[in-house]
C-alpha cells in the first residue's frame, strides 16, 4: 500500500482571496480638481507657467519644466475623440469587482481649450461602437450623485457627426456650432 501515492504527485493549491479597503489622499491639486467636479460640474486643468501646457488630470508640477503648475483653467466640457478602445474583453472593474457589460468604449478626449498633450481618459457612451472615429465631437455627462471622484463624470456622449477638424489639432477652442 502507498505505492500509488508515491508514483503520483499530490498537487495541493492553497486558495486565498484578498480584499483590501484602501484610502488615498488626493493632495490639494487633485483635491481641487475633484472638488470642482463634485460641486460645480467643471473640468479644471492646471497649466505650466513656463511652457504653457495643460495637465489633465492636474499634477503638482510640470514634469518637463520642473516647476509648480500654478495656473488653472476650465476645459471642455465638449471636446473631440483622439483615440478610443472598443473593449470586448469582459475584465472586472477593479474598483468594484463587477464584470463590465461589453462591448464598451473608452476614449482619450481632447477637451476644447486644451494646450499641449493632455487628453482626458474616460468612458464614451456610444450606441454603435463601430461608428466611433478620431475627431468625433463629444461632451461630458456628469453623474447626478457626485462624490468627488473621476466617476463624477459619468461618461462622454456623442454630440454630432465627426467634425472636419484634423486629427491631431488639439489647440484652441472649437468652432462656434449651429
Amino acid at each position: 500500500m502507498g505505492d500509488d501515492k508515491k508514483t503520483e504527485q499530490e498537487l495541493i493549491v492553497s486558495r486565498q482571496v484578498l480584499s483590501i479597503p484602501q484610502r488615498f489622499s488626493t493632495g490639494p491639486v487633485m483635491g481641487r480638481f475633484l472638488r470642482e467636479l463634485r460641486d460645480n460640474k467643471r473640468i479644471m486643468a492646471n497649466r505650466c507657467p513656463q511652457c504653457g501646457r495643460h495637465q489633465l488630470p492636474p499634477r503638482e508640477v510640470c514634469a518637463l519644466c520642473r516647476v509648480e503648475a500654478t495656473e488653472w483653467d476650465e476645459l471642455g466640457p465638449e471636446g473631440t475623440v483622439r483615440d478610443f478602445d472598443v473593449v470586448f474583453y469582459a475584465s472586472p472593474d477593479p474598483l468594484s469587482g463587477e464584470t463590465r457589460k461589453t462591448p464598451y468604449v473608452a476614449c482619450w478626449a481632447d477637451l476644447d481649450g486644451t494646450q499641449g498633450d493632455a487628453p482626458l481618459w474616460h468612458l464614451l457612451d456610444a450606441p454603435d461602437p463601430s461608428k466611433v472615429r478620431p475627431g468625433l465631437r463629444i461632451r461630458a455627462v456628469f453623474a447626478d450623485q457626485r462624490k468627488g471622484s473621476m466617476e463624477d463624470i459619468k461618461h462622454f456622449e456623442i454630440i454630432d457627426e465627426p467634425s472636419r477638424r484634423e486629427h491631431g489639432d488639439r489647440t484652441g477652442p472649437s468652432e462656434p456650432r449651429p
Partner: protein
Amino acid sequence: MKRKRRNVAIIGSGMSKFSSHREEVNQPEMIHEAVVEALDDAHLTMADVDCVLHGNMELFEMVHQPDMWHVIGDGAWGKSGVRLTTGGTTGITLACAADNIVASGLHDLVLAIGFEKLQEGHTTGGITNMADPLWGRGLQTGALTGTTAQKVIDEFGEDRAKLAAIKLRTIMDENAMRNPKAHRRLHLDREHLKDYADTDLRLVGELRMLHMCSQSDGACAVLFASEDKVDQLNANPAWVVDHVTVHREETMIFSAEMSTHRAAAKRLFERNGITDPRKQIDVFEMYDPSAWWGLDWLSDFLLLEGDEHLKMVENDEVGIDGEMPINPSGGVMASNPIGATALVRVAEAAMQVRGAAGDHQVPKPVKLALASGFGGTLWTILMLLSKDKPQSGATTHG
C-alpha cells in the same frame, strides 16, 4: 561621456520551462530550475556568486518579500543582495543594476534573477492597479488596448496593417516552435494569415487573442562577471556595451508626442556609434507585448521612417534567417512571465552573441545584439551586447 571602471560580461544564463500552469512546483522550486541552469552554463556553483539581485512585480502574487522566501531556491543565503521591482521593465532593470554593480568594482560575479508565477495571482487586476489610484483604475483593462492597431490601420490601410501584424505574430510562433522553453507554441501557418486576422477572438478593437502576449509562469537567471573573472574562468562572454533607461510621466496616453522607445534608441545609438542600426545590429530581442505593438515599435527602436517597418515584416527581414531577426526565441507573445520577461530578452540576446541558443540560434554571425524592456505606464530600457570586448571600458549608464 564617463567610462565604466571595468568591462562586464554575461557568462551564463538559465530559464525554467515557461508555461501557463507550473502547479507542480512552488516559487522557490521554479526559480531553482533557472539558477541551476545558469550556474551549469557558466560551470560555476553558488559559492562563486558574490551578490544576488532578485525581481518580480509583487502586485501579481501579492507576496511582500519573495526574495526571503526564495533564498532556499536561489542560494542567496548569507550573500549580498538587492530586490528590484520596476514593473514590466523589472527584468532588464536587474540586468542594468548587475552591470552597474560589477562595473563599479563592488562585486565580481552577480546573479540576476527575474520570475513571475502569474497563475498564482490575477494578472489583469495587478496591471490595472498600477494605474494612478486617483483617476486611472476604473478605466484600465490591464495591458490591453486597441489604439495602436487603430493607428497602424489608419496610417497604412486595414488590409495591409492587419496582414503585417498577423504575419509578425506567425513569425514569432515559428520561432517559438524552435525554442523548447517557450510557453505558447501554436503551429500557426502562413497559409491562414487572413483567417487569423479576421476571425480570431477580439479583445479590444483590432487587438485579438492571438496578437496578445501570454500569461506565463517562469524564471530566468543571468550571471554577470567582471573582465578579470571572464579571463580567469576562460568564459564565453557576451559583453555589456551600454544600457539606457528613458522614463516619462505617469500617464497612460498611448498616442503621446514623446516615444520613450525612439528617445532611448537615439541616445543609445548616438553614444555607441550606431548610424545604421539595421546593418550594424545583428539580432534584436524586443519586449513585444502584442503583435501590434511589436510591429509599431520596430519603427521606433530602429529609427525607421514611413512604412519601412511593415516592409521588414512583409519581406521576411525579421525572420530567424532574415537580415534583422527579431525575437528568435519567440518573444513575449510566446512567453510572458512578466518579472522575468525583460531579463529573458537580455538572456536571449546574450545567448545569440555566445552562440548558445541551440535550435533558435540565428544562422548568421552575431556580433552585436540589442535587448529591450517595456513597462506600463510607458517607459523603455535598452541594452546593447557585443561579441567583441568594448575598447577601454564601455560608456556608462546615463
